[in-house]
């Protein structure tokens, strides 16, 4: 079986972008202008319905920024943070493309199956 160029790229991006990375990117997208570390941590925890270590989210944000899928900028601190600044994240155009491609890859895998699954157990 041969893969077309498009499906090869889709498969490659889906492999590169893990589930947790997708959860973080989608949280950044959902939070819009309010996407900073703590808000992203809480959003990811709510979506995945489990407690997540802040270090895991921080490492993922750094990695995604390094890959060019996110950009960041500093915002002012608040009293509750003892004046420490917030780092706000935004999805770059590459990040949006990667999310679209990851979704397309999953849709591709599910093509031909009806939900709920019947007769495949």
């Amino acid at each position, binding site marked *: 079986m041969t893969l077309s160029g498009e499906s090869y790229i889709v498969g490659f991006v889906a492999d590169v972008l893990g589930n947790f990375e997708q959860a973080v990117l989608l949280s950044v997208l959902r939070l819009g202008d309010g996407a*900073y570390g*703590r808000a992203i941590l809480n959003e990811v925890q709510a979506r995945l319905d489990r407690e997540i*270590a802040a270090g895991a989210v921080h490492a993922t944000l750094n990695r995604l920024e390094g890959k060019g899928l996110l950009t960041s900028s500093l915002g002012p*601190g608040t009293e*509750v*943070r003892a004046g420490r600044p917030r780092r706000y994240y935004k999805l770059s155009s590459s990040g949006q493309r990667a999310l679209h491609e990851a979704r397309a890859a999953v849709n591709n895998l599910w093509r031909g199956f009806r939900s709920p699954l019947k007769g495949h157990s």
Partner: protein
Amino acid sequence: MTPPMPPRWAETLLHLVLNSRDQATVSGDLLEEFRESILPTRGPWAADGWYIRQVMGFVVRSHVLPALVFGGAFVVRTALDWLQPPADFHTRSLVSTLVAASILLVSGFFASWKSGAILAGGLAGITTTALAALLSTIGALGLLAIWHDPTTLQAIKGSGGLREVFFLPLMLIVPGALLGTIGGVVGTLVHWSVRRSS
């Protein structure tokens, strides 16, 4: 009234393992979560526990790679001593000592280069060695589970015995701190010289 703060030592530890770019923002995120969500719902003791767990997550995460290399090297050395025992351990010991020292120096260098603090190097040495000790213990137990025939048991005895396999990695924590600090001094110098020139 002074606003509640997490344990100061944990905040210091957090700063030591973070890149200087992220120190204020990440500690601010944790402080905000601590004060607004965790403390009101869980109380002071549990909130302190939550904060310490988060910091430990950062500490382990930032040293897991050198610890894997160090622990892996230790397990390989143990396997070689048990399965291919040499007539003279001197060369093998020299090579493994140099490998271990290099890993700890590099680990300390990068930790201090990242954070800009000499102490980060010492912490890297301690954490890397402690995690590697844990990994090498698991690895040695695995080796023992596979190979425990009389010939191998004799080779284990000849290479220093099981006591050395399980206690030597723990005894390396102090030299690990020292080597990490030496690497940390160089890393800090590079950090500040790069910062000054840019």
